[in-house]
């Protein structure tokens, strides 16, 4: 098992999307470059507080342990970061399509649902598709799955047909 194999799952645990993951690797690289090559003596927590990262990034990256940070040395920092970026870019993610733009708290809640139900290393990409009307759809491994209103409609089609048949039957009597 390489260092990248150990480090990447830690980063994906704290990231919901591939974009989050790549952005957080970039923040981490800035900190490590400062520490190893610019003589920066700041702790990682203080670096995050001083940097312009979002509260979400701050909260997520604060979860990383000192042991995790100790995996990086002056000699392996560039090669390890490059490997992390490379693997993150090629990592599998689930494209999730929602019918509307939800507020951030709802998105966070949704991302947590994926982490809790499909595993902590799950990465998702959220996009908006108004044609879905309700529910959601997603694409995984190149296969699209529709759980929008069409899914619910088809699921209840027999009941709908029965209602229509009953109505037509009554009308013809």
């Amino acid at each position, binding site marked *: 098992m390489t260092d990248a194999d150990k480090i990447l799952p830690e980063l994906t645990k704290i990231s919901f999307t591939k974009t989050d993951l790549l952005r957080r690797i970039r923040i981490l690289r800035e900190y490590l470059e400062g520490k190893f090559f610019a003589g920066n003596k700041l702790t990682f927590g203080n670096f995050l507080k001083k940097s312009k990262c979002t509260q979400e990034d701050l909260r997520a990256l604060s979860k990383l342990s000192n042991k995790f940070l100790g995996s990086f040395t002056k000699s392996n920092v560039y090669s390890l970061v490059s490997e992390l970026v490379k693997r993150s870019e090629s990592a599998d993610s689930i494209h999730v399509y929602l019918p509307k733009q939800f*507020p951030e708290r709802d998105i966070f809640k949704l991302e947590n649902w994926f982490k809790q139900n499909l595993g902590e290393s799950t990465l998702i990409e959220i996009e908006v598709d108004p044609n879905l*009307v309700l529910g959601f759809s997603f694409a995984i491994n190149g296969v699209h799955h529709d759980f929008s*209103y069409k899914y619910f409609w088809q699921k209840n089609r027999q009941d709908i047909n029965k209602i229509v048949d009953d109505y037509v039957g009554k009308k013809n009597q």
Partner: protein
Amino acid sequence: MINPLTLQYLLFALILIVLVLSAVIIYLLRNEDYKSKEPGSKEKIIKKAEQASDTIIERAVTRAQQILSSAQLKRISFLSTEKQIGRQITDLYRRDIEKLEAELREQFEKNTLSADKTYQEFISSVEKKIQDSLDKNRKTIEEKASVFIDSAATSLTEFTSELEKNIKNQIESEMKKTRMEIEEYKTQREKIIDEKIIDILEEVFRKTIDKKLTLSDQSDFVYQALEEAKNSHAFR
């Protein structure tokens, strides 16, 4: 009997002889006169010769006239006889012709009657034969036509019956097929109408639900769908 034309030739020859003899006598007398050389005797001799020649010529003319008269009489007699004979021949000939004509007419009438009779008999025979032939042919035709008509009527009846049966079968088959097609069409149309109704309902639902749902409702549907997807193992 001498031909009158021959008599005329003889008379003409006699006159010529007399004239030649007269001319010879005159010549001999003149020639004798020159020899005598006597003027008185010469005139006497000429006078005597003239007298003699006149007598001779007169006699010759008289005789010639007699001969001519006799010849004319003969000729007249001959012509009269000849005319009479010709008339007799003509009469005889006419009588023969009339007789022959009568005979020919009689024969012709006989032949005509015979030919007419024969022709009538022939016509009657031919008429009878034609009538017999016509009767026979008519009878044959009637018999054959009767057989043919009976046969045709039977065939036509059978054909009509068969045709009627075939048409009936075809119509029944077509009717059955048409009924099936109508039922199928009806079912198809009903299915299409049902589909359309559902499609219309779906469209109405889509348009109305899109406006009516709140964010909370939307969120509930998303989580319900997520659970459905998880339970159906769609994420694997």
